[in-house]
């Protein structure tokens, strides 16, 4: 988001401005940065609520994890994690490419990112179908489906954004000067990846 590094006066039309900003603008934080900041904070609180439930049953209640008689697919999901993490690298390649005016890198990077993200979601749905327990079986299962499902919903939203970026990339919409349409979904996608690393570690590994 280039606007973050632009002095805030430019956010009010670029003209020399005296006195307080308009009522719907912050005088301290540029609007695009403020919007993304509030969005990410709200997202952290949503995930925080689910993690609170997770730690409550594991630490306050002392319940075993996973529930007795169930097993989580740690190693297959580790490979799925690597697929999702690699999608962040291809996205970074795409963003780096358009900054340098490399259209092939943009198109190949974004399309690959979309395919890797879709593969991750497909494998996760397949995992749900074969894992052998349902959300209503026990509190542990509810938390498992809640946390991984919440993250899956974010991946779906990210894929929707990436589909739009992919189509626009192939139509030649971005340039080295104007590529915010790639940058903002990119920040969101990296956030989704960071959240998955935390979810995977707490739910599957620890």
């Amino acid at each position, binding site marked *: 988001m*280039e606007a*973050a590094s632009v002095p805030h006066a430019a956010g009010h039309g670029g003209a020399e401005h005296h006195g307080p900003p308009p009522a719907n603008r912050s005088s301290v934080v540029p609007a695009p940065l403020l919007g993304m900041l509030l969005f990410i904070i709200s997202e952290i609180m949503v995930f925080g609520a689910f993690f609170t439930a997770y730690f409550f049953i594991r630490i306050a209640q002392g319940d075993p994890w996973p529930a007795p008689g169930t097993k989580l697919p740690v190693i297959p999901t580790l490979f799925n994690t690597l697929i999702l993490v690699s999608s*962040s690298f291809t996205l970074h390649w795409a963003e780096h490419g358009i900054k340098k005016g490399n259209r092939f890198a943009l198109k190949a990077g974004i399309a690959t990112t979309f395919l890797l993200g879709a593969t991750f979601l497909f494998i996760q749905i397949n995992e749900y179908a074969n894992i052998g327990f349902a959300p209503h079986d026990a509190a542990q299962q509810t938390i498992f489906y809640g946390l991984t499902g919440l993250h899956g919903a974010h991946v779906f939203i990210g894929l929707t954004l990436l589909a739009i970026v992919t189509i626009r990339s192939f139509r030649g919409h971005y340039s080295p000067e104007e590529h915010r349409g790639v940058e903002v979904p990119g920040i969101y996608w*990296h956030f989704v990846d960071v959240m998955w690393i935390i979810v995977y570690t707490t739910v599957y*590994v620890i």
Partner: protein
Amino acid sequence: MLNPLRSEEEAFRLLLYVLACFAVVIGIALVVRLLL
């Protein structure tokens, strides 16, 4: 200071830091699981 909301590049750098930290945690946890 690193601000992952400022640009995709900084968000990617944060991801690398998180990845490095959690790779250590995951590695230790998996080794402990194998040993116990």
